[in-house]
């Protein structure tokens, strides 16, 4: 099977997974969503009726009024299709169609900085900030990890290797967000080098906002790297040690290929496919994990948005975010596949 065929089949697979994910999300939040929606419609309808005096006057008997309200509520529910269960084809199709067209609806409570309640706008406002922080961290981590991993793989068993491996294992065992709290104690409380909250105090419209954002980003970034690069180094080291045991490395040594060329050419090139996959997966995987980290640093990205949405149960925002996160994840998987086929000439998946 050729590369293009391989990629097309991966793309089809991606779409399939995406739909399954949406379905599962709806299935989990669907029932909750329905009750909440119905209740809020009821309140809305009641409020609008009780506010308008003309309607009130028209009814003499409170029973009639009650019946009228019930009727209006039922109409409203029916017009939204809420009388059918969440799994009815019509409603599923509406939701899926809306998701495909990226029409993520209106939020219940949350608003964007500009005051808009459009879910897509709210998410698109937060997404770049998360990408700014976490993608930068992933890129820096992978660079440090690859360089360091290659060096210690060559000296596997040495003191520096043991030290680095231990650091990797130990640093990976601490919760990232906990380290974040410690970093705040050290650098924001004790030494007062960085602000404790990562959200800049000036409004986003201010021209200095991007600069302020970067200043506030330094502490979370340092934390992400401190905790992250060890793991990267360790994984790269392990892959490299495996590759360095291959016969073709011995052959390269025998041929007189300089060591640098062996490490960064032969070995790293062969180790590239899994490493590339790892970069792609972890740069998107971090979006999901961002929730807690952003909560600790109060970083105004999608993680904190997700957290806010969950705290007030803003279901449209939750679904929208889950959807966007999954899309980003799947796209990275797809990119990883493409890169894999670029770096590994053997790629042939049946």
């Amino acid at each position, binding site marked *: *099977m050729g590369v293009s*065929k391989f990629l*097309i*089949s991966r793309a089809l697979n991606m779409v399939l997974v995406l739909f399954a994910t949406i379905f599962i999300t709806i299935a989990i939040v669907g029932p909750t969503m329905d009750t909440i929606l119905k209740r809020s419609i009821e309140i809305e309808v009641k409020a609008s009726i009780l506010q308008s005096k003309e309607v009130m006057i028209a009814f003499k008997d409170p029973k009639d009024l009650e019946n009228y309200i019930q009727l209006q509520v039922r109409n409203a529910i029916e017009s939204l299709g809420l009388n059918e269960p969440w799994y009815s084809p019509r409603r599923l199709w509406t939701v899926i169609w809306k998701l495909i067209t990226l029409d993520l609806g209106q939020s219940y409570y949350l608003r964007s900085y500009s005051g808009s309640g459009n879910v897509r706008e709210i998410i698109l406002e937060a997404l770049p900030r998360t990408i700014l922080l976490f993608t930068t961290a992933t890129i820096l981590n992978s660079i440090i990890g690859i360089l360091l991993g290659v060096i210690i793989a060559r000296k596997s068993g040495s003191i520096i290797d043991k030290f680095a491996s231990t650091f990797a294992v130990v640093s990976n065992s601490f919760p990232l967000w906990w380290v974040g709290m410690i970093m705040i104690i050290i650098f924001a409380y004790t030494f007062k080098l960085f602000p404790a909250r990562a959200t800049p105090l000036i409004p986003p419209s201010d021209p200095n906002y991007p600069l302020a954002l970067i200043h506030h980003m330094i502490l979370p970034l340092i934390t992400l790297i401190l905790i992250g690069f060890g793991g990267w180094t360790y994984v790269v080291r392990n892959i490299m040690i495996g590759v360095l045991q291959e016969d073709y490395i011995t052959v390269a040594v025998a041929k007189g290929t300089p060591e640098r060329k062996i490490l960064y050419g032969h070995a790293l090139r062969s180790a590239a496919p899994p490493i590339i996959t790892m970069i792609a997966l972890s740069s998107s995987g971090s979006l999901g994990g961002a929730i807690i980290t952003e909560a600790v640093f109060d970083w105004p990205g999608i993680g904190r948005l997700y957290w806010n949405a969950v705290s007030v149960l803003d279901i449209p925002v939750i679904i929208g975010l889950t959807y966007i996160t999954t899309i980003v994840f799947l796209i990275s998987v797809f990119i990883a596949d493409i890169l894999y086929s670029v770096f590994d000439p053997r790629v042939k998946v049946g």
Partner: protein
Amino acid sequence: MLWYLAGCIVSNSLGSILLSVKGLRKWFPIRRGFLDFITMQPIRYIKAVDKIDFNIKKGEVFVLAGESGCGKTTTARLILRSIEPDEGSVIFNGMNVCNLRGEELKRFRRLVQTVFQDPYSSLNPRLSVFDILLEPLIIHNIRETNSERKEIVYKAMEEVKLTPIENFEHRYPHMLSGGQRQRLAIARSLILKPKLIIADEPVSMLDLSIRAEILDLMISLRDKYGITYLYITHDLSTARYIGDTIAIMYLGKIVEMGICEEVLSNPLHPYTQALIDAVLEPNPNNRFKEKKVRIIGEIPSPIDIPNGCRLNPRCPYVMEKCKLIEPPFIEFKPSHYVACHLLID
């Protein structure tokens, strides 16, 4: 009791046909991706075994020889019904193996046993020698009491000279040498008193110095219990050492078949001839001359099988006809069959 009697019957009726393979065919479809399915790509096949016929007589060693990928192992699997054929039949002892179900199939499994190439992976590493030999008895529910079963196991161990028994019965496979493992594998195949043992390259992974031991063991068991062997190999020298009848396979077809000694000393098919040329002999004079290599290149993939005679792109004697028509399988001399256009006219 039946299994015991069966052995006696066999020894009395040497020469009659035990296993008959007729028009056996197995094409493996190549897995199509989702995309191939949509674009209506035709299904392509690996033509592993493409209509072969042969008979194995009771008590003989029938050799199926050929290079890797020629379909010999697939043939064995078809006979064992480890995979289902697309076409053709396998008649064993009067029953059509392809139609067996349930208890009948289980009985068949008891009568036909296998010995594999790799003595390292063909034994469950978690079981001791004793347990490995006990396993078939448990599966087939042979003899009720433990002491009776123990007796059978010990007897099998003695048979293959895994003695003294107390030294071996509690060992695990990794504590045995390659030769001992292969003897254990033979003991396991023997324990159900089979009529046919299919041995797939049983010595090719063993060191030279112990190969003869295994081959001799196999022959002695044949003489003692009248067991029939289907011996699968790429090594014509051991084939000659142990075989009675030989069939040479190339790309899913049998190209030549006959008495072992006859085929190997008077090969008729160019492929057989080339194979025999290629066999190495320990002779210091060889180093002064080039080896004769009659056919060129390497075996093509069994997906893209050439039209006509399958050997035609590599054959030194190729004729126009060879590229168009598949040669029939004829009895060129008494009991010596061959499929080659050169011999038809």
